[in-house]
């Protein structure tokens, strides 16, 4: 599994955002948005993240996430469907011509920081 690579991506982005002055102080929490159509298991990702930041200045940072459901827009009837299982047929007209519009997100949504700590 590649969750360690993704966890490294989270760490890299957190550090880049700090270098760019987006946040300062002590990071308490990083909140992610993880699409259901990504090949990522958030629990594994959190485990990898915790292990990788141990002993660093990011030790103890909470990694939380929300799932982003899979949605697609039908190219035939224009309606949007939300999919909970694989098989992306339009739920309005049954067409297979569905363009996935949501569910591939792999984002850091927000950071919770304590700015009183230098």
């Amino acid at each position, binding site marked *: *599994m*590649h969750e360690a*690579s*993704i966890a490294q*991506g*989270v760490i*890299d*982005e957190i550090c*880049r*955002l700090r270098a760019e002055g*987006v*946040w300062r102080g002590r990071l*308490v929490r990083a909140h*992610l948005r993880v699409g259901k*159509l*990504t*090949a*990522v298991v958030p629990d594994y990702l959190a485990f990898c993240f915790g292990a990788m930041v141990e002993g660093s200045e990011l030790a103890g940072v909470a990694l939380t996430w929300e799932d982003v459901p899979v949605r697609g827009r039908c190219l035939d009837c224009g309606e949007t469907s939300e999919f909970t299982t*694989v*098989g*992306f*047929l339009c739920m309005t007209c049954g067409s*297979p*011509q*569905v363009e*996935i519009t949501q569910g591939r997100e*792999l*984002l*850091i*949504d*927000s*950071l*919770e*920081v*304590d*700015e*009183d700590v230098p």
Partner: protein
Amino acid sequence: MSPETTRKVGVVTNILAANERVADENRRVFARYGLCVINLISSPGAGKTTLLEKTLPALAAKGIRAAVIVGDIATTRDADRLAVHGVPVVQIMTEAFGGSCHLEASTIRMGMEQIDLYALDLLFVENIGNLVCPAEFDLGERAKVALLSVTEGEDKPLKYPLAFQVSNLVLVTKVDLVPHLDFDLESLSANLQAVNPRLARLDLSARRGTGLDAWLAWLDAQIAASRG
């Protein structure tokens, strides 16, 4: 610590941004050389190396200059099999007991540095055998090609939807074995359609040579488009 002292900073940044930056750089390099790059993704044993063993001589006969970047977590067996065809083969990431599960844009970048890109029309990336992880990582390639061998079962598109969602072409391999299996080609069609109706598909048997002409024609079109 009391929650009042903390502040929420909205960032909305892509976790794979670092990989995608390198993938974009790779794409620019490939465009500069007019080089067509094809990323082959499949389960272990679907026939990526065998397909290349049949494809490379056919390309050479047509005057197409190809090279291969092979990702393998252990052994140089695939690279050794391909090297006899006289094309540049770069093996990246060899770990005695297995390492990573996918190739990233930065590993492709290291591989690229070992090849004379000017002398090439087509670069294959033989990804690590795995239908999950490689699907998530953009390498800067022109197209992803998923291989699905008939011995794996027709349900694989449903089990590994992302690989078939992000691919531009699926090659159904080892079709010479269909008469010996319970494999249901119609059910495979329905499963592929359910996951990605726009996915192009070619059926082939590298061993028998069935479908290779259509595959070579598909590659020709990709090469022509890459030249711009």
